[in-house]
């Protein structure tokens, strides 16, 4: 990376703010130097297409490559000269061989994200192998045991931030469960002209460096005018006492990022063609280093058919939030000859990635305005102002849950097998179905400590909410200068679409909507529960789990063959996308026989979430937050033996 840092200073072109946000037209790998410059205009829309490599033998070359997304030339880390890296198309059941040659002058690696494989093939330096030294070739070989949409990226330094990521599409051995006529990868990412080491250093020196949505005096004045001094004081009191910002949504923002869709800047916009009446499958992959995106296609409903590569019961939505490293496959059916905008706005509304689905490459659709900048609130955090009195400074008291809003919803989803939002209004007697004792006896999500007698007479919507509050304990290691808050009443918020998406008038996907399309194979009850807390100090920019950073942590031990429940408690104000390598995370969204399988699970601020894991892969695995500037500390080795 040090080499990169010097090279990143290649040109000191001055770049306007607008160029940062929009990027420049025809931005990307600099033509003439590109290995794929000959194919630059192969795409009907006259744009460089990302190459697709098929088969079971692949030669991948990691290089430095000149790119220009903002008007300034920088060096990116690329595979076969391409950013994003080529799409790899595999077939389930085949053995693939990937010879990866590192032409950088620093070590590199490729991790196959979400792929079930032997640990030695997982590509995490220091855990699964030694990494790929400069000039060396490492041969990955493994049998493909799954199908769907995945991706691959460097697991060395900050190379992923500088471009080393690509899509993996695996065709199923058997027939696809969903019919579609066209198939596009839509890979989202965030590009910065800055050296990632500098970004990290800046965050350590001034954690809100990139936040230009801070609350100002005029916001305060407006709030006082609309709510009065007392109410305003009360609503600000907690943030002021906590010394935190309610506008702290993203650590790194559009101030430095240009958001890309399939490597295209918003000024270019990726283009996908369709013919009227076709069913188009869009494979959304969030390969950003730090950015969550809220994705919608105004005018089109999206039917979500897969999450993290795994088929789910189809659910029709207007919008979904995609956490870093997650994937969602959707099907859209444009029934006319108009163009549609693929609009992926950053969670903090500091910019967007953009594409167009169009029957005619020259026709574009209107670009919607960015939504208002979201602000974290007490309710958003599952807090109740009245309980803030007992809060200690430096710590954070999440008060009682806000019963009126989301908690009932979360609970309904928790206890109702097979329910999905689209059926919620159907008079199908869901209460009685959902309340079957069988489902409740299982240690499902929020029901763990529920009083069964009181529940059996109560409908889910009227059940006493305190039963949902499971006392939380914080490890002694969570106390100290390295941890700035602890959630005292973290709640399950599966049906909470998240900050900035609540009550926006659109049907937004939530985790509560996700149900495995097939019955899960391992139906054993977990033999034990491992509770891990996601911790940090925002202003010192330190991240950890249970208050212990990776460098100081012992590996997490799993017994081969055991089924465990992992419960994550988010003691911070950020969303953390937690990625367990090598094994599926069966997310507890409702029906315990249909838990959706995920590789990356977003834990919302101040929330709790549980998933079940079958430790069926021996060896050492990485387990971490996928935000690149968090993962150095918020990381564990998992050892299955």
């Amino acid at each position, binding site marked *: *990376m*040090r080499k990169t*840092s010097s090279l990143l200073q290649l040109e000191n072109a001055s770049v306007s703010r607008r160029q940062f946000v929009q990027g420049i037209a025809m931005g990307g790998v600099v033509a003439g130097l590109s290995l794929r410059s000959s194919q630059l205009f192969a795409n009907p829309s006259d744009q460089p297409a990302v190459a697709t490599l098929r088969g079971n033998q692949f030669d991948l070359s990691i290089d430095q490559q000149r790119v220009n997304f903002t008007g300034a030339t920088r060096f990116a880390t690329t595979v076969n000269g391409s950013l994003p890296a080529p799409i790899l198309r595999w077939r389930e059941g085949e053995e693939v061989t990937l010879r990866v040659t590192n032409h950088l002058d*620093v070590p590199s690696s490729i991790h196959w994200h979400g792929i079930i494989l032997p640990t030695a093939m997982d590509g995490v330096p220091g855990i699964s192998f030694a990494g790929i030294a400069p000039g060396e070739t490492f041969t990955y070989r493994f049998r493909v045991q799954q199908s769907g949409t995945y991706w691959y990226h460097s697991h*060395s*330094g*900050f190379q992923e931030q500088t471009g080393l990521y690509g899509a993996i599409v695996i065709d199923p051995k058997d027939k696809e469960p969903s019919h579609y006529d066209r198939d596009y990868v839509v890979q989202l990412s965030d590009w910065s002209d800055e050296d990632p*080491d500098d970004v*990290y*250093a*800046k965050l*350590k*020196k*001034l954690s809100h*460096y990139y936040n*230009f*949505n*801070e*609350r*100002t*005096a*005029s916001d305060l004045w407006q709030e006082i005018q609309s709510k009065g001094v007392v109410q305003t004081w009360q609503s600000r009191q907690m943030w*002021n*006492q*906590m*010394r935190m910002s309610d506008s702290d949504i993203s650590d790194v923002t559009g101030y430095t990022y240009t958001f890309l869709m399939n490597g295209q800047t918003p000024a270019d916009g990726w283009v996908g063609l369709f013919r009227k009446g076709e069913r188009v499958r869009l494979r959304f992959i969030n390969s950003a280093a730090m950015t969550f995106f809220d994705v919608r296609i105004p005018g089109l409903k999206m039917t979500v058919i897969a999450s993290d590569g795994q088929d789910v019961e189809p659910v029709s939505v207007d919008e979904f939030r995609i956490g870093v490293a997650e994937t969602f496959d959707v099907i859209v059916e444009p029934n006319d000859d108009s163009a549609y905008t693929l609009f992926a706005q950053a969670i903090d509304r500091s910019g967007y990635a953009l594409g167009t689905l169009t029957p005619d490459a020259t026709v574009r659709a209107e670009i919607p305005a960015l939504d208002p900048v979201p602000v974290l609130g007490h309710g958003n955090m599952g807090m109740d102002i009245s309980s803030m009195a007992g809060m200690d*400074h*430096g710590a954070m008291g999440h008060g009682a849950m806000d019963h009126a809003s989301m908690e009932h919803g979360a609970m309904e989803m928790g206890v109702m097998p097979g329910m999905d939002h689209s059926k919620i209004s159907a008079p199908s007697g869901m209460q009685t179905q959902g309340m079957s004792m069988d489902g409740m006896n299982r240690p499902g999500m929020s029901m763990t400590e529920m009083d069964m007698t009181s529940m059996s007479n109560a409908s889910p919507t009227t059940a006493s909410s305190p039963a949902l509050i499971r006392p939380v304990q914080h490890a002694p290691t969570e106390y*100290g*200068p*390295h*941890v*700035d*808050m602890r959630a005292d009443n973290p709640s399950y918020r599966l049906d909470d679409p998240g900050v900035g998406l609540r009550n926006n008038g659109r049907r937004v996907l939530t985790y509560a909507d996700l149900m495995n399309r097939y019955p899960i194979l391992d139906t054993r009850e977990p033999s034990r529960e491992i509770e891990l807390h996601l911790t940090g*100090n925002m*202003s*010192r*920019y*330190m*991240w950890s789990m249970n208050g212990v*950073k*990776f*460098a100081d942590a012992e590996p997490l031990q799993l017994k081969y063959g055991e089924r465990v429940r992992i419960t994550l408690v988010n003691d911070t104000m950020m969303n953390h996308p937690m990625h367990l390598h090598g094994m599926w995370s069966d997310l507890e969204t409702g029906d315990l026989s249909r838990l959706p399988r995920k590789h990356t699970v977003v834990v919302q601020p101040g929330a709790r979430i549980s998933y079940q894991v079958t430790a069926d892969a021996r060896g050492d695995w990485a387990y971490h937050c996928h935000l690149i500037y968090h993962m*150095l*500390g918020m990381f564990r080795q998992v050892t299955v033996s």
Partner: protein
Amino acid sequence: MMKIKITLITTTLIVPSLIPGWVLASGEDDPLLYKVIVDQLEYRDTDGPNPMVWNIDGWLGKDLNKLWIKTEGERINGITEELEVQALYSRAIAPFWDLQAGWRHENLPKPDRDWAVVGVKGLAPYLFEVDAALFVGESGRSAARLEAEYEIMLTQRWVLSPEIELNLLGKSDPERGVGSGLTDIEVGLRLRYEIRREFAPYIGINWSKLTSDTADLARAEGEKTEAGQFVVGVRAWF
């Protein structure tokens, strides 16, 4: 003592220039970093010659442990009239607080004075930046200083920042013209524009007043005990 001083100044000046090459090893969650903070570098508009005043700090270290250097001084007509340097070991003791201990040298005006320092620096509830320190010197001397600053974001780039500094002295030091008790109060209000986060020119007003015994000593010398000035300067860090 002189030798230590030279070493420290050398360290302050030379270390940062050496750092970029080796500080940022990738994959290191807690890299060794440095920050130079030009908190104030300003001209003050007075009736007489306009002094240039600075308040420049820096640190070198990791997340929880740092070496801090704090300097402040005043130059008039190209001659440094006031200069003090602190070298402190800083350790994080709470999420928003660092305990800082070390040595303070008041070089100018003469005669110079040395002090042992212990203090806390951090962010108080309601987002007040606070630096409070106790000083213990030779011959039974003691002193205390409290600095507090608040930032009001007028917009994302215009920041209004009131601040206050109080100095206390345990026993009079007539050689340096300061008496026991509260020696002086300084209140400032600065409006800066952050062209970048790292660079913000500002204008402001600064009002300072000598108090109690110190004021008496100044009056006896025929000096003013109170001054209000317009200031123009730059705030920067890297």
